[in-house]
Structure formats: structure tokens, C-alpha cells
């Protein structure tokens, strides 16, 4: 990637595109923040708004204009001058104006008419999306100490779910989280919920009642993030292993560029050097891999959620279509079986009730030959 950037701009902490409209070159998040703070006046990023009269007075003074001119100027630039309807009429802003010449509205009208003809009502997921938005916006903490400081960095992070099915390539299910620059990577890890953390491992056809207590997260705590050549391992618990070592040694042995390691709990976002828009990796449970993309980095704003305690803040969650039981088609699958003579397919998915009714007698004795594995549906989090 040599010479990808002409030497005209020596400041590498002012993000530029590495690849237009896709991702930036690498920069240091803390330094990026400082670049902004050096350029701005504290009043620019303060959560408080300066008094309007003070503003007017200062403006008139600086421009050397009279109070009269100032009044004229304010009236010329007033928002009333943008009003597109008679004063005594209140337009219905919910309705697309039928006779507009704006192309956007012509299209929106068509779409709305089409939607009306289909009689689709809003589903619960759209309502949920609205709900998320309403909760997050402009929240203030009860204690001042929990306030996100002015000029703090806010990151938007997308975490993608493994592409298990072909169709996922096109829709890319993900969650979106907001974090501040002083959060650590470990806090990001704890905010990512993934079914493989809840997966129960093992075959339990002979003892279906003891299965559910055996959850992966308790057994396989190791995980890492990979950003720009560095593996950030979770080393918070004694049973954590540095699972990046295998990769690092493999890479070394095969003449890849060298990789290094750090602890995720010791690394704050502020300390990271990253590319915005670039796909990185989160790996846990040994082989459950997630893409992680930092889609935005910016200074905090007064309408952000200002309560530190509410971060990492979930702002988007995909919906997953749950897989139903092959027998009743009503309940979400809890077991999948293989080599199962009762099953219509191999493997086959059953809800708990149908599974037990079909595979065990009234006394709970196993009937016939099959292997049974507990199953956690990805949609169980919806």
C-alpha cells in the first residue's frame, strides 16, 4: 500500500478517504478528537446554547452594523421566509402533497399509493425501531458524574452476524452500538450478544433434562478483536486463553506481516488506530466470527444520550426470522436431531414439546435411535 497517500498532507489524524465513499485511511481516534478540539471554540461543542441576544450583540459589533441593520438582517433570514403555505392554514404534513413538481414527492406519492393498495400495516419490528430511537435521544443522567463530558468522542459500531445462510449475504444482519472514546474493547465485547454464547454443546438424547444448564459462555470465555494487525484478547478471567497465539505463530511461520497482541480490557477506543468504514474481526467461541465496522466517529452532541451508564447503547437491531418446529410449525425450535428415524428430514428441528412427545414414552424412556442436540434459535433475541 506504499505511496497510497501523497505527502502533501502530513497530518494523518485528519481522516481522508483511502477508498472513496468506502473507508478512510488509518488514524488515531484520540488524536482525531484533539484535532477537532484544537479547531473549535468550547462553545461550539458545548451542550449549552449561547444566549440569542448576546449572539446578536456580538454579531452586530463584529460586523460593525447598527441595531437597525441587525433587525433587518434577522427578519430577512427568519425561518418564516421559508414558509410554503398561507399563514392561516395548517398543512397536513403526514400526507404527500398530490400536485408537487418535486421529483422526490412524485416518487413518494407513487410509493405511498402502492403501499396503501397492499394494506400493509406497520409490524412490531418497525415499532420497535421507533422505540429504540425514542429511548436513546437526548437522555440526561441523574448524577452529574455520569454525564458524557463535552467534546467526548462517540463511535458508532456495527457488529455483523455470521453469514450462515446464503440470503444473509444480501441483508447482512447486524446490531449497531454507540460507544464513547473512554470505553474499552471489553465493554464492547460484553455488549455483543450472539447465540453461539448460548449454544449448548453436546449430544443429550439420553438425558434431555440436564441439557439446558450447559451454556457455552460459561465454558469458553476466550475471545479477541482484530484491528489493524493487533489482536486484542480478553484476559479478564483466569480461564481465558490467548486464542490469537495460534494465528500469530501461523502467520509468522508463513511470512505474513507481523501481528501483535494487547488486552481488550486495557484498550480504550481513544487509544485505537483504525480505519472508519473498514471491516475488522471479532472472534469468540473459538470459531464464531463477526465482522465489526466502525461506521462513524464524531464529537458528542447535546442531543446524544448523555448518560454514560446507558452506553454501550443499542440503536439498531436486525430481526431474524425464527425457525419453527417441523411438527407443529408454531413454536421456535429447541432441539435438532440427526439419524432420526421419526424425522422428516436430517437434521430436523423440533420444539421441546413435540420433541419429547415423539421421541420418549410417558415414562421418559428414549424410543428408537437418534442423536439430539439442544438448539438456540438466532431469532430468540428478537
Amino acid at each position: 500500500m506504499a505511496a497510497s497517500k501523497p505527502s502533501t498532507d502530513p497530518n494523518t489524524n485528519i481522516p481522508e478517504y483511502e477508498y472513496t465513499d468506502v473507508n478512510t485511511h488509518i488514524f488515531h481516534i484520540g488524536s482525531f478528537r484533539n484535532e477537532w478540539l484544537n479547531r473549535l471554540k468550547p462553545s461550539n461543542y458545548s451542550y449549552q446554547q449561547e444566549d440569542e441576544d448576546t449572539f446578536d450583540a456580538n454579531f452586530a459589533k463584529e460586523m460593525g452594523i447598527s441595531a437597525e441593520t441587525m433587525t433587518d438582517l434577522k427578519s430577512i433570514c427568519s425561518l418564516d421566509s421559508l414558509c410554503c403555505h398561507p399563514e392561516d392554514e395548517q398543512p397536513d404534513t403526514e400526507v404527500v402533497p398530490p400536485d408537487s413538481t418535486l421529483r422526490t414527492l412524485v416518487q413518494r406519492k407513487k410509493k405511498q399509493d402502492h403501499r396503501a393498495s397492499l394494506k400493509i400495516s406497520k409490524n412490531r419490528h418497525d415499532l420497535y425501531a421507533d422505540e429504540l430511537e425514542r429511548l436513546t435521544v437526548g437522555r440526561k443522567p441523574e448524577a452529574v458524574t455520569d454525564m458524557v463530558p463535552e467534546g467526548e468522542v462517540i463511535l458508532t459500531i456495527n457488529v455483523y452476524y455470521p453469514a450462515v445462510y446464503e440470503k444473509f449475504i444480501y441483508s447482512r444482519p447486524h446490531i449497531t452500538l454507540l460507544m464513547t472514546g473512554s470505553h474499552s474493547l471489553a465493554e464492547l465485547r460484553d455488549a455483543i450478544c450472539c447465540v453461539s454464547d448460548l449454544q449448548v454443546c453436546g449430544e443429550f438424547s439420553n438425558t434431555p433434562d440436564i441439557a439446558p444448564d450447559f451454556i457455552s459462555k460459561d465454558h469458553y470465555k476466550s475471545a479477541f478483536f482484530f484491528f489493524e494487525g493487533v489482536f486484542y484478547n480478553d484476559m479478564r478471567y483466569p480461564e481465558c486463553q490467548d486464542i490469537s497465539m495460534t494465528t500469530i505463530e501461523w502467520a509468522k511461520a508463513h511470512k505474513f506481516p507481523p501481528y501483535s497482541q494487547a488486552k481488550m480490557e486495557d484498550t480504550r477506543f481513544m487509544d485505537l488506530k483504525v480505519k472508519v468504514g473498514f471491516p475488522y474481526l471479532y472472534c469468540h467461541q473459538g470459531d464464531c466470527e463477526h465482522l465489526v465496522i466502525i461506521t462513524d466517529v464524531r464529537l458528542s452532541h447535546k442531543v446524544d444520550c448523555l448518560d454514560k451508564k446507558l452506553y454501550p447503547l443499542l440503536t439498531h437491531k436486525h430481526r431474524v426470522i425464527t425457525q419453527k418446529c417441523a411438527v407443529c410449525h408454531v413454536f421456535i425450535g429447541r432441539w435438532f436431531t440427526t439419524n432420526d428415524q421419526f424425522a422428516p428430514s436430517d437434521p430436523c428441528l423440533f420444539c421441546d414439546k413435540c420433541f419429547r412427545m415423539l421421541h420418549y414414552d410417558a415414562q421418559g424412556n428414549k424410543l428408537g435411535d437418534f442423536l439430539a442436540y439442544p438448539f438456540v434459535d438466532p431469532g430468540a433475541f428478537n
Partner: protein
Amino acid sequence: MDFCQKQVKSDCEELLGRFQTTDSVRFEIFSKIWREMNFTQIFYGTVNHERRAFSRLILDTAYSFFLPPFSFQIRVGGLYLLYSLYHCQRASPPEQIRLALKNWEDVKKFEKDAVDAQHLDVIYILRQLMLRKAFNFTAMPTVLAFNKKRKMERAALCEAFMERASRPQELINIELLEELSNVDDHYGKLKTSIGLQADPSINLIRKELVPELRSTVVDFYKWQQRKGGAGGHEDEDSGEGTSSQQECSKRAQLISSIKSKAYGEAAEASKSRRHRQVEVDFTSYEAGPSLSSGYSRTNKPSLKARTNENVHVSGDLWEEATRTTHINRLTTLDFVPEEKPKTYKRFKW
């Protein structure tokens, strides 16, 4: 929201196009066009969960007009558009205008130009947006999620809104003509001195090369002026700007007279002026204050191609390394159409 991106852009261009024909940078004029077009209505009829996304889209679209390479006048229009959209949007609390760190200098320079020219409405509106916390101070102008649709979205910039091309004038400037004339002169003398001027086989250079070149560029310039038609002085107007229309056109006349003078003097320009290029360099008049940072699109090879290029995999491990993992599939899909003939050759087998 991507479905309406084209429509939104075209509506903004229509508004700014009308603003451009007025040759004005006054907010009064802008708001009149806004009202005529019923532009506030652009937010009407967005359903709840679309509101914020639509605000985001239209603010991002408008933002691009506020930056170079557009002319000063269009950038003023872009600022007014941001101000108006910001206040008329239906998302509550309002969606912010994203201001990228790399564009900060452009905005400061724009503000300075406006102050120097005493465009009070421009300065007032920019400062009002600051006062009301309408900006988010960001890393990049848009949120970046490694999107594959970028090819479609990379629509052409509206040419009419940009500063007029001045490359021929820039290239064939007085310095060059002078130099060329000297060389031509010298060459002629050399030929004479060795007594070859009679031999037609060495008449390789056109006679009158320099005047011809000059008149061609002058013709081009005149044609360009004619083509500009009624709005002939809009780009000069867009320069440091003056507070009234009348002064603008006066200034335009002045600039064009300076230009024609520069050409008229081309032949007799003295050597002493050689380093004072500013006086004869067309571009310094032609370009508004906005052209300071050049505009170029870099076309880089795809991520995959670049990775391939950078990572040297030894021996038969290549196969193992490229075996499609889920992650690999997610990252590569976008770039498939981008790929030139596969670059596997570059690997050391």
C-alpha cells in the same frame, strides 16, 4: 432510503440551478425560490421511522453543494439549503448536519471570504447554525458501512455549478508564450547561422507558431465567454464577492479587461515580469476562493486486490488462505465486479 437519492439530488440541483441564474448570493432571493418550489413540502408524508433517515439523506446531499469544487455562489446556495432543510425537517430532535474534519478549512475559508465581502446574510446564517448546534463534528461526511452500492451512487457532479475550466489559459499563459517565442527565435537564428534556412527539409516548425497558439487560446476564451451567455460574469461574481450586484459586474468588467490586457501584452512582456506570474495568470482571477483545494477522485483498486498485492503468501498455502470463510464471503462479495483480471500471478508460487 437509497431509493430516493437520485430524486432528492435532482430537486436540490433544480433549486440551486434557479438560484444560480439570479446571479445573487442573497438569502432573500434564495428563500423566494424555496417558496416558489414549495420546498418545505419535501418532508411531507414521510412515515415515522423514515423521517430521520430521510433527513439524514437530504442533509448529506445538500452538504456536498456547500463544499468545493462548486463556485462560491453555489456554496452559498448550499449553505442556505442546509439552513432551510435543517429547520424544516420533521425529525425531532433534528438530525444534525455532518461536518467532516477535512472540510473544516474549506468552511473557515468560505466564512472569511464572506466576511471580507460583507455578505452579512451568509455569515449570519452560518453562525446561526453554529449557535443552534446544527453541526455534528465528524470524521467523515457520511456514515461508512462498507457499502457495495457506491458505484451507482457515485453520480456525476453538476458541471454547471463548478468554476469554469481554465486549463488552456492556465497552460498557455504569458510565461509559456514568452518562453516559446524565445526558443523559436533562437532556433531560427541557429538555422540562419549555419546557413540552412533555405533547405525546406528542415522547415519542421510552423511559421508564426506563437501568435497562432495565442490566438487559438484567445478564441477559446471568447467562445467560452459567449457560451456562458447571460451569466457571463457569474464566476467572477463568485470570487471574493462584493456586496452589491452592480459592483459585481463592474468587477467582472475590470477582470476581463485585465485579462485582455494580459493577452494584448503577451508579445512584449518583459523578462522582469517573469516571476510576477500572478498578474498574468488567468486562473487566479478565474477561480473563486473555493478552488483552493483541488478536487480529484482517486480510483484505487479494490480492497481484495490491494490485500492480494500486499500479502505475500508462500507456496501451496495460497489455497488454504483463500478458502472462503464466512467472513471472507462478506467482505469480498462487494468487490467482485471491481476485479480486473485476477491478480493471482503476483503471488510468488
